[in-house]
């Protein structure tokens, strides 16, 4: 018995949602992305600022239109006795990824669910190669990521990695490089010779569609994707620190998406550098 769902009457039927013709839901169309007039390779404008949380050793806030994430970094600090299971010459990177209860379409719980636990793990695996953990044995670096507004899961994870990496740098933790991350969605875009938005997607034959990779897709676009990829990358060292892909795609599409993500990561890297430099020149580092 599923106690988490509201139990309706036994013979309840889910309502069939029908949209009026003039209020058509957004559907992927050629050169017509959901938010603004982005090209497939365009990412959303990034607002990235350090020093949001005073209590933390380092912090950062990232905003990509409707994706908003705050991150605080504490440490390196002494591991608690409970964490000290055995001696290790390396420090630990402990990441906690949390969606605020109001951040998603459905209300999230206060307790970390399976997805949040997994994203925490992904976050720590993506950041660990950059952080020089060997320099602080017996210590732990805590990274707390809070998603305030979620507009596309893959993009949200990518933004969280970017944000956490800047927060780590802001905390003065020794790193080999910053980690930038970007997401890409595999879209099947109906091809239309007239360039007109095609309203009825069902009439499109499979042959008349085109595969595209839309970078940094938002929630509405994500609903129509065939799959997505999140890639974390250290631009100066030319190293991929994490890759997470789901959905089915040809090998060539994968290679192409990896390259597009790296390209986008290089752009994000410039923003990250800029925001860190700004924080230093403004003397706001604590």
């Amino acid at each position: 018995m599923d106690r988490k769902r509201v139990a309706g009457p036994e013979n309840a039927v889910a309502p069939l949602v029908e949209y009026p013709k003039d209020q058509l839901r957004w559907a992927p169309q050629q050169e017509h992305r959901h938010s603004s007039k982005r090209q497939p390779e365009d990412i959303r404008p990034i607002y990235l600022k350090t020093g949001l949380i005073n209590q933390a050793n380092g912090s950062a806030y990232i905003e990509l239109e409707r994706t908003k994430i705050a991150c605080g970094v504490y440490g390196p600090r002494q591991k608690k006795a409970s964490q000290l299971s055995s001696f290790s010459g390396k420090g630990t990177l402990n990441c906690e990824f949390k969606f605020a209860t109001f951040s998603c379409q459905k209300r999230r719980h206060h307790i970390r669910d399976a997805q949040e636990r997994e994203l925490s793990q992904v976050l720590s695996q993506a950041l660990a190669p950059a952080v020089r953990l060997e320099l602080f044995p017996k210590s732990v670096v805590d990274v707390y990521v809070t998603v305030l507004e979620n507009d596309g899961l893959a993009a949200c994870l990518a933004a969280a990695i970017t944000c956490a990496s800047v927060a780590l740098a802001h905390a003065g933790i020794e790193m080999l490089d910053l980690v930038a991350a970007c997401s890409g969605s595999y879209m099947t875009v109906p091809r239309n010779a007239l360039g007109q938005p095609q309203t009825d997607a069902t009439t499109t034959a499979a042959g008349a569609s085109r595969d595209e990779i839309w970078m940094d897709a938002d929630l509405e676009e994500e609903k129509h994707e065939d799959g997505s990829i999140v890639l974390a990358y250290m631009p100066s060292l030319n190293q991929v620190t994490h890759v997470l892909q789901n959905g089915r795609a040809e090998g060539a599409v994968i290679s192409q998406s990896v390259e597009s993500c790296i390209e986008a990561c290089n752009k994000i890297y410039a923003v990250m550098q800029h925001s860190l430099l700004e924080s230093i020149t403004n003397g706001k580092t604590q």
Partner: protein
Amino acid sequence: MPTNLISPAERDYILKGVEANVRADGRQRGDYREVSIETGIISQTSGSARVKIAGGTDMLVSVRAEIGPVLVDSETGDGADKGQIICSVECVPSASQGWEGRGADDVNNELSQIMARILSSGNAMVDSTSTDASSPSATSKPSSTPSSKGGAAGIDLSKLCIIPGRLCWILYIDALILDYGGNIIDALLMGTRAAIFDTQIPKTQLQEFGDGQFDFELQDDTEDMVTIEGRENMPICVTLNKIGARYIVDASPLEELVTEARLTIAVNKYGQVCGLQKSQEGCMEPSLLLEMIQSGKTMGQALIKQLDAKIEAEAATDLSMRMQGKPPQKYGFFAQ
């Protein structure tokens, strides 16, 4: 034996051995260990398989089909005509010292999420009309209607629906890791494929009473069960472990300790990538990443072919036993 300790000398020996293409147990980088598979060993399930990799890893995958309400996306109305797949993985504490108490929680969660991502996410449904073995190159996208989203890794979920908007089959895929000897993920997906191939669900007949009232009837004829549609399109996994500048498949526990970065590549029989995940705290160059994806793809396709041959051979043996009126011979837990 403490499970997560390795000496620097061993680490170095394994690293250089991978470089020299002679691994500690004599295998080369691309060699798998022997895998033994047996299906249909648990009578309570709709389908089951036991997978053992020589040298330790041992697991049981069960598929249970149960009737439940459909899960409808409240906003888009998606899913009203779809069945569901729910995955869970549990590492038993007796398998490894590190898994006692809550120790296995993270591993369980990670494995369950990987399974769920590969088996029930994205738009991975293969349109059975556009893709057949003769034209693997055909880009087998499902017809691009938004509502076709949600197909699970090849399995045709719409065939699992019983009464649209109300009832469907829910396939619970539960895996129990009984022993740990490295390379759990690959074995997990092999076992899942074998178990799904073994799965048979009763036929259902929809009855209309008019007035929008529907009901269905289960046909309890055990001779007339149906198999899961689209099961041959399910992906399996190849996990590549990056050690030094090289990578190996099917790592042993010690090799997993030396692994810097691990890349799990899910591939279906058409050579399409159905999922990709890096784990462990290491990184790799983009060129190596692409090379690993490419070789994972090739290996995965070969692996599926051999696995299918094995599953079919076993199914044929079982069938011939049944024709002779004997129960098929299963060793189950008496097997070595």
